[in-house]
């Protein structure tokens, strides 16, 4: 646990070798702080950190392994390659710090650069590299000293949108070949889905969800995650095929459940009409449009009512129905489109 002014980070997390854990969360959730604690840059106020069976921090025993002896690799968003050293010197730095002779360290570094596809860049200065190249140099610099744990803080945030997919694919390949555990911090859900074997969602200093990327995409447990994966999320009490999500608000679901549950449905499953519909849909709620914005080739409506939700409709529908902020509408969702899972 780390306290910093008003902010408290309280996290319990264990990971297996070979796992790539993506820490996902809004700004200020404590993701970077968690990495700094793991790297030993910050000291926890209370808690224990052990990696691969080695205890790094235990406040109960007043134990703290200095950041220089933790063997935890740390790659930050802007990579922070030492600007006055060339690429080889950067990569060889960790080996030189361990007392390895210069020629020896540099030949190791050159081998790593080849592995990273950076032949010919050995004598370049960091400022002469592209973002993706700099990232690979930073990775090589961390990996060359064989860390027990690899930490990546927003590894793709500094790249322009055009080069991001290619670098992301390369990063994924490099992470797959790294035997230790990796923890990646991001606030980009696509990055999380593509890199992670496991996603941990952090909000206000607490872990709110922990699971595989597909679990996360199907069964979000917080409003933040639901927004990220593009679902409407409601919490309620189920009995039979009906879930009560608020006073006078119920959602019909396709299968029988009971107790506290989450219900989720995608915005595109919502049908909007201005008159009360008379179809097969069992879920029909009145509401008022509060916001209208473009969303891909659809239009996303924010609807306030007994059941607040987002709804994606076609631009044609918006025009035909004359929708705008303040329009009173009926929203309907088929019970078969609604996912329900225990809270």
């Amino acid at each position, binding site marked *: 646990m780390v306290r910093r002014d008003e902010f408290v980070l309280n996290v319990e997390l264990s990971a297996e070798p070979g796992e790539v854990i993506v820490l996902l969360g809004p700004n200020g959730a404590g993701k970077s702080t968690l990495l700094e604690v793991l790297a030993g*840059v910050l000291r926890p106020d209370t808690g224990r950190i052990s990696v691969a069976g080695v205890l790094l921090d235990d406040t109960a025993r007043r134990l703290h392994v200095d*950041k*220089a*002896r933790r063997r935890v690799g*740390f790659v930050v968003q802007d990579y922070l390659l030492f600007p006055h050293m060339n690429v080889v010197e950067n990569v060889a*730095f960790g080996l030189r*710090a361990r007392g390895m002779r210069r020629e020896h360290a540099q030949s190791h570094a050159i081998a790593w650069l080849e592995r990273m596809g950076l032949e010919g860049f050995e004598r370049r200065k960091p400022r002469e590299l592209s973002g993706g190249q700099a990232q690979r140099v930073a990775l090589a610099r961390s990996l060359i000293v064989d860390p027990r744990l690899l930490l990546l803080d927003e590894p793709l945030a500094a790249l322009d949108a055009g080069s991001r997919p290619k670098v992301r694919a390369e990063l994924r390949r490099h992470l797959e070949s790294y035997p230790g555990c990796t923890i990646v911090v991001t606030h980009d859900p696509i990055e999380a889905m593509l890199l992670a074997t496991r996603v941990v969602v952090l909000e206000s200093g607490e872990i709110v969800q922990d699971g595989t990327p597909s679990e996360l995409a199907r069964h979000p447990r917080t409003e933040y995650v639901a927004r990220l994966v593009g679902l409407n999320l409601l919490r309620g009490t189920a009995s039979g095929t009906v879930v009560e999500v608020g006073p006078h608000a119920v959602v019909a679901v396709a299968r029988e459940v009971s107790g506290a549950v989450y219900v989720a449905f995608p915005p595109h499953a919502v049908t909007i009409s201005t008159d009360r519909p008379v179809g097969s849909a069992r879920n029909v709620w009145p509401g008022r449009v509060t916001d209208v914005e473009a969303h891909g080739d659809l239009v996303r409506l924010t609807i306030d009512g007994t059941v607040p939700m987002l709804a994606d409709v076609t631009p044609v529908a918006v025009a035909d129905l004359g929708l705008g902020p303040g329009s009173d509408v009926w929203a309907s969702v088929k019970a078969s489109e609604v996912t329900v899972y225990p809270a």
Partner: protein
Amino acid sequence: MTHRRPHDWRVPPVILVPALVGLGLLLLPMAGLLWRAPWARFPDLLISESVVTALRLSVMTATAATALSLLGGVPLAWILARSRLPGLTVVRGLVTVPLVLPPVIGGVALLMAFGRRGVVGSWLDQLFGVSIPFTTVAVVLAQTFVAMPFLVVAVEGALRTADHRYDDIAATLGASPWLIFRRVTLPAVAPGILAGAVLCWARALGEFGATITFAGSFPGTTRTLPLEAYVAIGAGDIDTAVVLSVLMIGISVTILIALRGRWMRAT
């Protein structure tokens, strides 16, 4: 930068007139020196024995004072910029006191500390029979006292602007604090250190009040360029005083132009 504001040559008179008065106040004394300088005798005076002796002593002591300032000032700046020791704000304030203190007061303070009856000086005298006043060492100490704050302030500024996360990264790679300081921190703040050292040297070269109070004035031992100029004025030898002044102004202007052009921008 691809976009630049067009130059505007018009300056409102409300600003221009006081600006010219201010500029005149700064430049006229120097112009006066150049006007009064005995140009015909200039080369002879420049190589006269007293001037050459004072110049040699000044260059030697200013360089030694700068070296001493680097040795103590860079680590001090590091502590001020990076550590979280208690009472650092007070220390920072005290370090900059010599910047605003009249140098003569600095000289008196040095006597109280290192003089024969001073706190440290009496002890040095009794134990080792060493007495600092009236020696070249005293000149170096006086110059260091007055000039080191310039270096500390410059280096502390550079260290604050430098990104300390580089140091953290180096540490996670297994580097010891000394290796980090040497291979990561120092290169990052090298321009700041260089600029600070040059300013420090220039200030040491111009040191007068603390030197004459603490070290006295004896040719070849403690009489630096500014003291030589003072003696020349006292002896009515205005020509020598003017020549020395022109020499000092030349050195200062060269240093400041060089700093403006290069290192100031780099930091």
